[in-house]
């Protein structure tokens, strides 16, 4: 049973989880104190840590006061990348393409997930990687602490207009105080994936699951929900709550931050959204029941929730369509875009991005590699590699949803053909339709704290330990405490 696997339905990588780190052994609290102290000791013992970098192409350019900052188009030297794992054909082909475009650069990769604890030690010791891959939600926090550098000049050197090459929503997620701090990778919008078998049993179609009609959605969810005693056997509509709570705020016209990144969790729109989440949850047995039910599901296996008819419809990021292709003969699916309360489709997605640490020794090579790895040509190579794999495995090609609308359209027109499975084809089309109106989560120096606070509020409200209003007020207070600690909150 694979229900225990860590799943983020929005397609985000996990910013701070620590599974690997914890796995290394028990982390005692005093060990953390020691780690913090040790990091500072390392910093003190390493004068290079506190002075501007020297010796790299980029740094020398920066010193000359060039308008391109530390970036040049002819990188050389060595490049250390952390957090990017080219283990599948998509990652490998992009990595290979990027490396081929920087022939004079020697690339080494730490393929483990971005770990803030490790990154802290690296920064303190002055031994940072040149390029990191991290969740977009954490980039503004790193920017606020001046741990990553703005990339406007990196884009400029390569003649890339960020909001044209990448989805504007993804760029918004990476923009902090007017500067862009990251290069987005994927934008895999969430959609509703309907299980036609269960929907059909109740005379419903996926198009009946309209998020702009919350009451109708709750009713449809309750209709499809089945219980045996006090145990769920089918959940009508899984809204990925609290994982996609930020999405539901958007559906109701709310959001997590204002334009400066200041948390705005306790707005009336957000309260409406949370009230809906609770109604949806209660209509299907309540949060505790649903959570236990979900935790026991075989998410990636041959007996997934669609095969086992454990769900009528679910909110998933696009990549789950790929997972379902493994059981294409056993499932009947269809897709529906998520709409806001005005009925307009919403393309909402988390995801990862590349960023360059402020103390990177070779920012030019890092910039070149990241721009090339997210270029249209790199994505084209990735799409071809994926097609090849799909052919070999006799699977279905469901498209490749990148952080670039240019690449997405090119891949769609060149490689996305009817699969012979009408349900999958309609779901793929739905995903492209969702991208017609992409919306940003917003960026904030307290992105992670605000997300945690929202998640806590949702769970408090869903379990009934606080009203939606009280839960959001408390979340806002918690997020504002973090905001007050940030440079932006201090007016810096």
């Amino acid at each position, binding site marked *: 049973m694979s*229900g*225990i696997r860590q*799943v983020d339905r929005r397609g985000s990588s*996990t*910013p*701070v*989880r*620590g*599974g690997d780190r*914890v*796995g290394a052994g*028990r*982390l*005692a*609290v*005093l060990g*953390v*104190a*020691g*780690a*913090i*102290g*040790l*990091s*500072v*000791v390392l910093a*003190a013992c390493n004068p290079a*840590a*506190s002075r501007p970098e020297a010796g790299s192409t980029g740094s020398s350019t920066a010193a000359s006061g060039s308008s391109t900052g530390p970036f040049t188009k002819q990188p050389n030297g060595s490049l250390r990348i952390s957090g990017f794992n080219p283990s599948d054909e998509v990652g490998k082909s992009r990595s290979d393409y990027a490396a081929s475009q920087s022939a004079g650069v020697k690339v080494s990769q730490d393929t483990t997930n971005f770990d*803030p604890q490790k990154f*802290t030690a690296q*920064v*303190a010791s002055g031994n940072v990687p040149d390029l990191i891959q991290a969740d977009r939600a954490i980039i503004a*926090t790193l920017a606020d*602490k*001046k*741990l990553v550098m703005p990339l406007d000049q990196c884009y400029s050197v390569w003649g890339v207009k960020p909001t044209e090459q990448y989805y504007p929503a993804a760029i918004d997620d990476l923009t902090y105080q007017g500067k862009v701090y990251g290069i987005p990778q994927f934008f895999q919008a969430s959609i509703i994936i309907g299980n036609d078998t269960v929907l059909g049993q109740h005379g419903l179609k996926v198009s009946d699951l309209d998020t702009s009609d919350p009451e109708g959605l709750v009713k449809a969810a309750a209709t499809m929900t089945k219980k045996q005693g006090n145990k*769920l056997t089918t959940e009508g509509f899984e809204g990925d709550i*609290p*994982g996609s709570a930020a999405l539901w705020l958007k559906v109701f016209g709310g959001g997590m931050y204002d334009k400066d990144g200041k948390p705005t969790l306790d707005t009336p729109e957000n309260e409406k959204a949370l009230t809906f989440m609770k109604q949806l949850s209660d209509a299907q047995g309540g*949060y*505790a*029941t649903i*959570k*236990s*039910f979900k*935790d*026991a599901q075989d998410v990636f296996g041959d007996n997934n929730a669609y095969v086992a008819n454990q769900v009528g419809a679910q909110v998933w990021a696009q990549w789950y369509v790929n997972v379902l292709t493994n059981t294409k003969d056993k499932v009947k699916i269809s897709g529906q875009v998520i709409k806001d309360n005005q009925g307009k489709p919403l393309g909402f997605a988390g995801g990862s991005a590349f960023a360059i640490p402020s*103390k990177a020794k070779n920012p030019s090579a890092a910039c070149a590699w990241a721009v090339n790895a997210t270029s249209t040509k790199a994505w084209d190579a990735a799409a071809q590699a994926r097609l090849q794999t799909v052919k070999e495995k006799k699977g279905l090609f469901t498209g490749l949803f990148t952080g670039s609308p240019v690449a997405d359209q090119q891949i769609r027109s060149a490689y996305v053909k009817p699969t012979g499975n009408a349900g999958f084809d309609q779901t793929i089309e739905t995903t492209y339709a969702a991208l017609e109106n992409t919306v940003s989560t917003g960026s904030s120096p307290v992105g*992670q*704290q605000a*997300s*945690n606070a929202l*998640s*806590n509020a949702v*769970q*408090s409200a869903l*379990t009934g*330990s606080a009203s939606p209003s009280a839960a959001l007020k408390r979340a806002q207070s918690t997020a504002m405490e973090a905001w007050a*600690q940030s440079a932006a909150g201090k007016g810096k």
Partner: protein
Amino acid sequence: MSTTAKRRRRETYQWREAVAGYLFILPWLIGLAVFTVLSMGWSLRLSFQHYDLATATGTSAGLDNYRQLVGNPRVATALGNTFTYALMAVPVDICFALLLAMLLSHQRRFTGPFRVIYYLPKMTPPVATAAVFLLLLNGQYGAINRFLGWFGVDGPTWLVDPHWVKVSIVIMTLWAVGGTTVILLAALQNVPRELYESAQVDGANGLAQFLRITVPMISPTLFFLVITNTIGALQVFDQAYLLFYRDGNAAAPDAALFYGVYLYQQAFQQFNFGLAAAMSWLLFAILMVITAVQLKLGNRFVHYEGGNR
């Protein structure tokens, strides 16, 4: 050889022996100095600073970080949760370990394999243990609730219901009780057999033997375990993190907020190193006080064969 010469030779020998001893422990002493004492010293200094990781500089914060701890309700919540857990985990852990140790001490055949089996879970990585317990503790389909169901008991949603969150971690802690069991087993085996034989001659039953002989004779070990397990329980991190924060969404966010988890969040999610260091030192101070009280009170109940210490 004169007495003076003999004494000098003896002193030289002793000095050489001492130097050799210190040389042997020198690597460990260097490790202790650099990785523990120096780091702790720096972290103490850090607790009085606002530390900027980007520039590797700290500016004096005075008592600001400590003041923030006092005014932060989440610190109080985290401390409350951690103490509640420790109050449950320490006695349950020791009692369960004692039960296992007594079973093992009475075992006459296959004692070696049994000891290995009991100790084996201690060697399992916490991540693997947590993965298993996520399934065992599942509210609907978990083995524990299925077992309870045989007796007509409708088990709780262990990992979601705030009332059962800490109990679920205690249950997970019991899985790794092997270390405590081995220590208690060694203590039990050091209890002289003659004491039990004399007690049997005097007509003492099993319970009386346990209360009057076993417990007093292993009380130094029990006392040691109470202290070390309390320290360990107040530092709980990995079980809580893996069971409740693995995907960033703690199902019972308030009930599962342990001090170690909150400290980690402050340090490595918010990069508030000064505040995190202050949290570490607050916990250190609390642990010192608790240990001092335990030592003061505990000595009254501990039986030392050589007399009271």
